[in-house]
């Protein structure tokens, strides 16, 4: 889903994520800076992610649109993996581009923080045959526009 704008790209998928592809997706002639964030499985055999897919896509697209507007980004993209994500592999990637690095860093930071706080996505830590839902926080509401 493109989020209705060529500036924003969102995908929720059970396939492995590609940092290179997402970085290329936000490249623009006016972009002098691209910042990418990759969140990876650590300390556990694998994580299993479950998403309310349609809502997650809509929320993430709204977050990226807000970041583009607030930080003057050229483009913003995010992909979240669902299903099993083995140790060391990426569960979420955010990439943003901007004319200069200050707004790119700020926009990427705001995007990943908001995605983690607002997107309806859950994870289970799995070791061998046993798994446990990670206790998180109730989602925060988006800030008024």
């Amino acid at each position: 889903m493109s989020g209705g704008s060529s500036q924003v790209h969102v995908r929720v998928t059970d396939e492995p994520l590609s940092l290179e592809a997402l970085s290329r997706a936000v490249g623009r002639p006016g972009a002098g800076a691209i910042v990418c964030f990759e969140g990876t499985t650590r300390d556990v055999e694998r994580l299993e992610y479950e998403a309310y897919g349609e809502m997650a896509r809509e929320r993430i697209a709204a977050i990226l649109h807000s970041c583009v507007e607030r930080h003057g980004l050229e483009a913003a993209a995010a992909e979240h993996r669902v299903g099993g994500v083995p140790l060391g592999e990426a569960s979420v990637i955010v990439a943003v581009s901007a004319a200069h690095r200050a707004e790119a860093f700020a926009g990427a930071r705001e995007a990943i923080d908001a995605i983690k706080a607002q997107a309806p996505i859950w994870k289970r830590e799995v070791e061998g045959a046993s798994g446990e839902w990670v206790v998180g926080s109730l989602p925060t509401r988006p800030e008024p526009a």
Partner: protein
Amino acid sequence: MVSVKLFAVLRERAGRDALALDLDEPATVGDALAALARHDGLAEVLARVPVVMAVNRDYADDDRSLHEGDELALIPPVSGGSAR
């Protein structure tokens, strides 16, 4: 009659990914939450897991009114909440 989507720990405890809810109209999100808390498959888990409700894929307050055909979902705590 509305259908409520269930996810993660709620889906697991209820043993299904959606359940049907009978509500007297007019009904609000708060009415739906109260009815769900009395539901056999969910009462035990809802007593200890806090939830918010989403209506048509937006987080909704308790006083939001519900209409025929609304898409309801129970959202337990999401896993990425902290900024660590």
